[in-house]
């Protein structure tokens, strides 16, 4: 009993501290103290809190503090959590305007964007809960049908099975989407892109911070990238950060 009480207290304390921190970070941002805001937001991120608003705000604070690559990284993270969010898209566009490498990113196909938006409208857990709900409904319907046959119940049962399968798949898809780190942002200026995953590789490009690249594979400390224009090259993994 004491243990449970202690756990509850701990939880409430934690909840309290994160509330204060997010609000106080917002307050720091509001007064123009972006450095302080960054410190506080970053602390929340380090506490493995994940939220669209947190990433978005942190990205904004980095932007105001002229840390372009970090700004883009966190705005992209926010966009990943909430594809199609108007504010995030706007700020991200502005941030990309300030990068020195102008590789025009292809606009996402509308149905892919819709799909991403739909997938991200709920978290994986929410999808999973919906799936469970329909799983229970299906069970109950089938049980009743066993005893008493009824066409309405049959319809309900089949519908529930379909929903259960759909929502559970969505939960799995959303989970893998969250875990995928397909894209990355170049974090440093004047980064060499080489033809092979070692220092003796021929230099193919030089890119600057803020460039969005697609990760293909990683070997040791090297990552193979694909640029928006289709070119592929190797880069030191430390020079990029995954979205």
């Amino acid at each position: 009993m004491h243990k449970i009480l202690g756990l509850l207290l701990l939880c409430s304390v934690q909840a309290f501290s994160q509330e204060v921190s997010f609000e106080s970070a917002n307050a720091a941002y509001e007064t123009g103290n972006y450095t302080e805001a960054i410190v506080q937001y970053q602390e929340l991120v380090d506490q493995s809190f994940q939220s669209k608003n947190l990433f978005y705000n942190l990205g904004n604070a980095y932007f105001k503090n002229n840390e372009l690559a970090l700004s883009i990284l966190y705005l992209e993270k926010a966009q990943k959590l909430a594809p199609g969010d108007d504010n995030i898209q706007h700020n991200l566009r502005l941030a990309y305007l300030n990068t020195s490498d102008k590789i025009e990113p292809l606009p996402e196909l509308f149905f892919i964007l819709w799909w991403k938006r739909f997938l991200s409208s709920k978290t994986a857990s929410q999808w999973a809960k919906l799936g469970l709900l329909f799983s229970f409904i299906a069970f109950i319907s089938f049980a009743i049908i066993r005893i008493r046959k009824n066409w309405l119940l049959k319809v309900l049962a089949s519908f529930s099975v379909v929903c259960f399968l759909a929502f559970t798949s969505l939960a799995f898809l959303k989970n893998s989407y969250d875990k995928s780190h397909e894209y990355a942002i170049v974090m440093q200026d004047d980064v060499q892109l080489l033809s092979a995953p070692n220092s003796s590789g021929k230099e193919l490009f030089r890119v600057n911070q803020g460039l969005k690249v697609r990760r293909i594979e990683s070997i040791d400390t090297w990552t193979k990238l694909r640029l928006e224009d289709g070119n592929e090259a190797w880069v030191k993994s430390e020079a990029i950060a995954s979205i």
Partner: protein
Amino acid sequence: MKTLNIFLFLLLSWIGSTSDAQVRFYASGSGTTSTDQNYKVVFTLENGNGSSFKAPSFEGFRVLSGPNQSSSYQWINGKTTQSLSIYYYLQALQEGELVIGPAQITVDNQILKTESIKVSVKKGNSTSNNTANNNTNNSNNTKSNSSSQDWKNQAKDQLFLKVYTDKSKPYVGEQIFLYAKLYQRVNTYGTQITKMPEFNGFWKQEIEVDQDAWQQENIDGVAYQTLIIGKFALFPQREGSFTIEPMEMQSIIMISEPTVRNFMGFQMQTMGYKQEEYNFKSSALKIEVQALPMEGRPISFNGAVGNFELKTTLDKEEVDLGEAINYKAIISGTGNIMAVSEPLIEFPKNLEVYDPQTKESISKRSNYINGSKTYEYLIVPEAPGSFTLPSIEFSYFDLESKSYKTLSSDRYTIRVKGELAKTNKNSGHQDNLETLDEDIRYIYTKNDLSSKEQKFFGSGAYYTLSIVPPLLYSLFFLFLRFKENQGADLVALKNKRASKEAQKRLKLAKKYLDNADQKGFYNEIFDVLNNYVSDKFNLQQAELSKELVIEKFAEKQVSESLALQFEQLIQNAEMALYSPTNSLKMQEDYASTQTCLIAIENELNA
């Protein structure tokens, strides 16, 4: 009254006598000269209108120039002196005593004569007669050098230049006059300005002066011929202390000099003159320029000082869309008009205003600089409606009242008729919405933090819960199945036990038969047959009927005769319950029931 008249008469006649001062005619010239010097002799007529002047013969002299004339008018201590001078430059031809004879002139029909002048002529210092080319910077002749020092010292007082302004502490933008005045009491020619000062920090405008307006001026009792040789209007451009550099001039002056000439063995001393180039300059002039007062300075003030007027005109107030309108703002007046800049006009939106055409006219004729600046705007309305051109403000510093004054122009209302074309709307109208600068959007303030650890999906709870429905369903299924199986066994059991039960009951019927209990016997037979059928076919006793029983037997492939026999037996038993029979018949029914049941059982099991 008479006495007053007499007094006035006396007074006037006295004034008349003083103004009509004594007429004098005299000759002047120095008593000595030398053969290499220029000698000047002047015949002066004071206070008289002379005519038919006769010069003396100047024996022993050569006339270098003359007769030259100059006249002057002086008014000293209430005494006016009008004088006419006729002068000659002479050079003595030989040493010795020479006499310049009397000159004569006729004034009011009266002949006046001057006195003769005795001149002793020395031999000139230099045998060279070419004194005119004797330059001041001549250093190869020590004697001439020393004499040049003499004349230079003399010249300092006889020929100099003064530069002065009418105001010593002007405001920024205030017009001042700068004069350059030449003072001389020596004969010169070829006077020219060699260096003009640079008026740094001033806007300057030269004003034309009359180059022959010689005047006479007295300084400490010494009379000078004066001439304003330069006049400038200056406008200080900024505050501070400014120095106007000296103005430099050059002139050739004639200096009388005794000359000693050797003429035919005689030493002759005469008075000659020398032409010397003389450079002189004014002293530097300091001007302190004061800043305009800050107090009461209007926002629209941008440096205009003087006295100005503002006028605006609009050529039409009602136009069609796209028609151009002319709007003029004219600033005119006296003062630093060149410093006037374009007034700030806030034109309403939806009026396209082109850069103005600027016209500037500055009059340089009069002393005080005046002029006007015209700004002509071309306005093209881009949308229909009514627009108000705001009043223009123009401020200047008024020197008389030493304060700022602000002028405001009229307001105009322009009515624009017409319809806005659609294409116009897109290009012209939406300009207002053009983004000026882009900033990132503001942060989200809603706290939507959720910890990664709190994830439900993938947790044990999720998997447990997802197993529950199929598990429950399976259990339920099994339960139903079990129940069904149980029901099926009971029927089989009944079926199996039907004949056994029938045999048991038949034995009971045999007891009744042995006791000759007819009612009990047939009752038992009836029950035996009915129970058998109901157990065999899982039917309720109540629903038993003759047709159903025959049907059920047919289902089980029992022959129809047997079924009918079975049915006959039931009917017999039913009838025998109520009608008495003998014991033989009971015996017979018992045996046929037994054989029928065995036969049915056999056919069922076949």
